[in-house]
């Protein structure tokens, strides 16, 4: 068992150390993306004209291939984790912004009017009414963003071994150790599925008011986001 997960010393990490690194490199950008996307999306909801240009910009940024993006950033951030994480954060916007916008827009006007009529200020109304109702949509967006981010981190290996689990690919190829490649691929896939499942559980916990089994809404959204 131990042999299976033994890592060559130049990887500088144990297998589970790499898993931790991978999670950090993949999920921190999504978190950063969420922090940026929330206010941006709120602006897009508030000022409708803003939404199309914002979507246009995020789509164009998303179109820039990860490797190209990394390379261009090397000039500014060097061969570091940051170089990998910045593009991932930018990519997550293309999924998160429309997810939040659609989610917040899905809050019925009557509900908002009722909240205002009961004397909730804009901030409370946002935190207590809009955000919770938009939560399923936002979590659906987070699922897509996290899974694709986990998959993309591996590419970071190409720029100075910043790919966490992806670093094992290079090692496996160079030293002819298919075991490392398998470990990398399966490990990444399992990680993606676990994070996805965790976010589903989170959604169920956060939205006890949603009828069970009616995931159609969020699935539609996932599909829409996958299409960006």
């Amino acid at each position, binding site marked *: 068992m131990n042999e299976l997960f033994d890592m060559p010393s130049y990887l500088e990490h144990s297998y589970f150390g790499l898993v931790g690194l991978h999670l950090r490199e993949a999920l921190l950008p999504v978190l950063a993306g969420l922090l940026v996307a929330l206010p941006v999306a709120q602006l897009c909801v508030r000022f409708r004209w803003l939404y199309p240009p914002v979507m246009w910009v995020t789509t164009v940024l998303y179109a820039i291939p990860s490797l190209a993006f990394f390379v261009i950033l090397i000039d500014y951030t060097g061969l570091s984790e940051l170089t990998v994480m910045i593009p991932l954060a930018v990519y997550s916007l293309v999924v998160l912004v429309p997810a939040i916008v659609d989610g917040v827009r899905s809050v019925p006007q009557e509900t908002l009017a009722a909240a205002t009529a009961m004397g909730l200020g804009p901030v409370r109304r946002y935190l207590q009414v809009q955000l919770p109702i938009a939560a399923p949509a936002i979590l659906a967006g987070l699922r897509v963003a996290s*899974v694709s981010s986990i998959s*993309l981190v591996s590419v970071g290996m190409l720029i100075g071994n910043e790919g966490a689990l992806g670093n094992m690919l290079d090692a496996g190829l160079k030293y002819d150790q298919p075991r490392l490649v398998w470990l990398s*691929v399966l490990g*990444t896939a399992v990680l993606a599925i676990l994070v996805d499942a965790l976010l589903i559980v989170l959604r169920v916990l956060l939205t006890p008011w949603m009828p069970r089994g009616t995931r159609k809404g969020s699935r539609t959204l996932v599909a829409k986001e996958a299409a960006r």
Partner: protein
Amino acid sequence: MNVLNFISAFFNDSAHWQGYDGIPTRVAEHVQYTLMALAIAAAVGLPVGLLTGHTGRGGNTLALIATSARALPSFGLMVLMFILLGLGMAPVMIPLVVLAVPPILVTTYEAMRSVDPAPVDAARGMGMGEAGVLFRVELPMALPLIFSGLRSAAIQIVSTATIAAYVSFGGLGRYIIDGLYQRDYEKVVGGATLVAAMALTTLAVFWAVGRITVSPGVRRRG
């Protein structure tokens, strides 16, 4: 020296414009990989998505397939396929197709499902056959969303095909990978610029195709 200098130096070097490592050859290779993978993925995803969407059955199965396919890391899969299958078209095509099928499949399905049921009911009531309903009513209305799925797939293919250079393939990724090994930063940046330009061209192509094929009656609605 900043990035812009590298870019201009790269494109002004006449050596970069000819031979098997010239820009035209690499662009052609990249386009070839992209079109091939997109064609295969569309040939799989479109019919299945259209049919399941039309009948409304199998949506959950599709979602499951898409989620698991999305969890597979393309880069890792490419290296794995290279180890298992050696040099050849298959180790490149398999990861690219696996990457491209989920967005095409799921968006096509959802695009068909999101078509307003009233015109579909009206079409059947007027005596249109099932094929007519599918191709003359549902498809034209679902087209914008279907295109967005294809576009997303195409962009991901362009992006991931770059990585194919790592496992000894051609395409625009060659400049980046070679440049990284040779510490030739000019080459790296030049390649990155070309890939980004190709991705943006893909966006533009899809935008243009959408303008031409999507009816103004559908387009103006969104």
